[in-house]
């Protein structure tokens, strides 16, 4: 489904991704892990077509995604309909004057008729349990509520792939648990999940495969999440954990 071959990206002279080779199949639940500044968010932006690689190729469903192709409105809309991105900071993702308009934004941009838009918005609000926020101003919501609205905004496009950048950040434990259960349901329903996270306690619940980035901005490990979490030496080597980290899995 997603194929990255020798992908490199730099912000001016600063290397963010260095010869990344990654293959993601339909229905997988993948966690991107690594220390701060290793390139996880950059990779997520690349997958969503926000940036294009300086070298290498990115293919989605066998078709190469390039900067030139993304200039074509039709191609861009098609890609963004298939891959949904939940940003780390919900504030930047919520820009409409009501939650209803926020969730309706994506389908309206895709040219969906208004009755279908209303249907989708109602479904998404019900799915996330936020029907009472329908007419509220997104900016006035709490952190957890904003995260739910941001997810609803993306789900209204019914994407095949859901990309989440550190979705647990700033959420209380109860909301984190809710999000984990929700993501598990989405993956069971057939959605491909790609999550970037530092939360080592919950990562094994939202992914079965983990891709570990090193400080050299390359992939140092690509294995089952539980196996990666057990490899404490590897996690210490990439500066993700320190001497006091102890691997635990709670069932």
């Amino acid at each position, binding site marked *: 489904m997603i194929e990255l071959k020798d992908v490199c990206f730099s912000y001016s002279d600063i290397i963010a991704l260095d010869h990344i080779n990654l293959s993601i199949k339909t229905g997988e639940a993948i966690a991107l892990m690594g220390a701060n500044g290793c390139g996880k968010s950059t990779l997520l*932006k690349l997958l*969503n*077509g*926000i940036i294009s690689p300086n070298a290498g190729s990115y293919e989605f469903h066998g078709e190469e995604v390039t900067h030139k192709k993304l200039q074509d*409105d039709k191609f*861009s*809309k098609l890609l*963004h*309909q298939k*891959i*949904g*991105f939940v*940003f780390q*900071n919900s*504030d*930047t*993702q919520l*820009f409409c*004057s*009501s939650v209803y*308009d926020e969730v*309706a*934004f*994506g389908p*309206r*941009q*895709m040219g969906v008729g*208004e009755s279908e838009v209303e249907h989708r918005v109602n479904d998404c609000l019900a799915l996330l349990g936020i029907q009472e926020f329908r007419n509220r*101003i997104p*900016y006035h919501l709490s952190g957890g509520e904003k995260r739910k609205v941001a997810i609803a*905004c*993306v789900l209204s*496009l019914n994407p095949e792939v859901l990309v989440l950048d550190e979705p647990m950040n700033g959420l209380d434990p109860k909301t984190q648990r809710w999000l984990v259960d929700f993501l598990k349901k989405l993956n069971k329903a057939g959605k491909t999940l790609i999550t970037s996270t530092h939360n080592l306690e919950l990562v094994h619940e939202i992914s079965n495969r983990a891709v570990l980035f090193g400080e050299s901005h390359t992939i140092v490990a690509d294995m089952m999440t539980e196996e990666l979490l057990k490899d404490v030496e590897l996690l210490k080597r990439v500066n993700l954990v320190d001497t006091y980290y102890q691997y635990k899995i709670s069932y």
Partner: protein
Amino acid sequence: MNVPLQVFGTLVLILLVSLTRSFVFVIIVNVWLLAVLSMTDPSRMVVILKLSMGITFFTAIVMLPAFVLGNTYSSIMITTKVFATITAMGLLSHSTKWSALTQALKTFYIPDIFIFILDITIRYISMLGEFSLNMFYALKLRSVGKNRSKYSSMAGIAGTVFLQSKEMAEDMYHAMECRGFTGEYHINDKSKFKWRDYLYIGIIAVFFTLFIYFGRV
């Protein structure tokens, strides 16, 4: 009530009050506005009245020399017109959400993208204001004794707020792109007419008729 109609009605009322030469007409409008005000929330009424009375008082002070020199009629007309205008605008702004007001501009064929930029600007003024206030508190807490380089600190805050706003704008654009935005922004006009709106149209028509009648008398 239908917000575009409210905006249109308020603008028409203000226009009629500005153009009229009849003191009776202005008084009728003022009585009507005070009657509407009396039916609003007491707290909202106090806020609107404070604003209207304050500006009217200021206008009266400004018109005082003209009043003393014999231009009685014009001075009183201008003062009462100011009261009517401010009260009408106060009623509109306090009874309607800002986002609904900006979306009502669509009815007046203002381009959608302009309305969107206006909406976002208002929202981000508030967000960046909060951000710069937090930075100011952080500066205050870290300052020991007297700060002789206040201006360079303030310049630092201003510069950081500018960079932050640039970053937020870029992130927001990316978020819009990821949801299919390709340059065209569409606002959905959800306004529908109810019986109150037809009553409001009737009232505006009555004022228009009175304007013409008192204009001829």
